[in-house]
């Protein structure tokens, strides 16, 4: 049980810290863009409702009556909670994966693992599915979620094969695995985005930079803390 307890304990501290950092950066990076995009989204919805029943039947989100946090402190609070929970989740993945290779020895090693996490969970999925501000209609959510998870998994296995594979064959398989999701292609939206191009582009940049800083923090901190609990 020692190993499990140690991983969870370190992941909780690391996830909390990385989630706080993520939330702070988002307030300057992505949040203003989300708010701006939502104004466009609402104008569009209002316009669609003005025209009787132009509204597509598949337009599922923002269901009437579903709870949502009030703007301001409540909305910020839930974003903070979600960021911390994701942070702990990603920290658990990073720490347990590195534990399979003997555990992190230093903050520098942790930082390298963090960069791998950035490549797996931010870069690779966003090549096919660029991070979207509200108001951008995509392909069906489930299709995109399946592609997102499959791409992250294929990239993770590919990177592991490159780093730890012994034979050239493993390297070839790794490159094929990393490229495959993009050759197959992500599910694409049927209609062009309703928000201005520079806003959509700015959002992609903001999410990518935010993700990079998040993963660098998470990895380095995990590497710094893990040796203090290395009795396992």
């Amino acid at each position, binding site marked *: 049980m020692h190993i499990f307890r140690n991983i969870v304990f370190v992941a909780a501290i690391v996830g909390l810290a990385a989630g706080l950092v993520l939330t702070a950066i988002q307030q300057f990076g992505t949040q203003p863009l989300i708010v701006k995009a939502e104004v466009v989204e609402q104008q569009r919805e209002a316009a669609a409702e003005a025209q009787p029943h132009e509204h597509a039947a598949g337009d599922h989100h923002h269901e009437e009556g579903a709870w949502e946090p009030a703007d301001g402190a409540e909305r910020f609070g839930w974003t903070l909670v979600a960021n911390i929970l994701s942070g702990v989740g990603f920290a658990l993945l990073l720490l347990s994966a590195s534990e399979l290779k003997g555990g992190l020895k230093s903050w520098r090693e942790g930082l390298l693992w963090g960069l791998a996490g950035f490549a797996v969970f931010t870069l690779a999925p966003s090549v096919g599915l660029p991070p979207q501000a509200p108001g951008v209609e995509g392909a069906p959510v489930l299709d995109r979620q399946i592609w997102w998870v499959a791409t992250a998994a294929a990239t993770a296995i590919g990177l592991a094969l490159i780093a730890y594979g012994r034979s050239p064959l493993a390297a070839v398989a790794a490159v094929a695995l990393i490229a495959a999701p993009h050759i197959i292609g992500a599910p694409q939206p049927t209609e062009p985005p309703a928000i201005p191009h520079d806003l959509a582009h700015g959002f992609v940049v903001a*999410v990518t930079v935010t993700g990079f800083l998040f993963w660098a923090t998470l990895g380095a901190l995990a590497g710094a803390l893990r040796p203090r609990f290395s009795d396992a």
Partner: protein
Amino acid sequence: MSNATSLPRSSAAGLVQARALPIVSAMLLGVMLIAGTGFVSISAVHNAAHDQRHAIGFPCH
């Protein structure tokens, strides 16, 4: 808790197995947390985590 003081590397297979279970359990816990915040489609959960989903780049509506 038994303390394996002697023969530290003789039962490498057993050691690997003893380490694998807790490590994989921790990994699954991480997957569950990420699925909960980033992928569950229940409206209330989606709305609570809405900004976070967009800001991390999870597929959202």
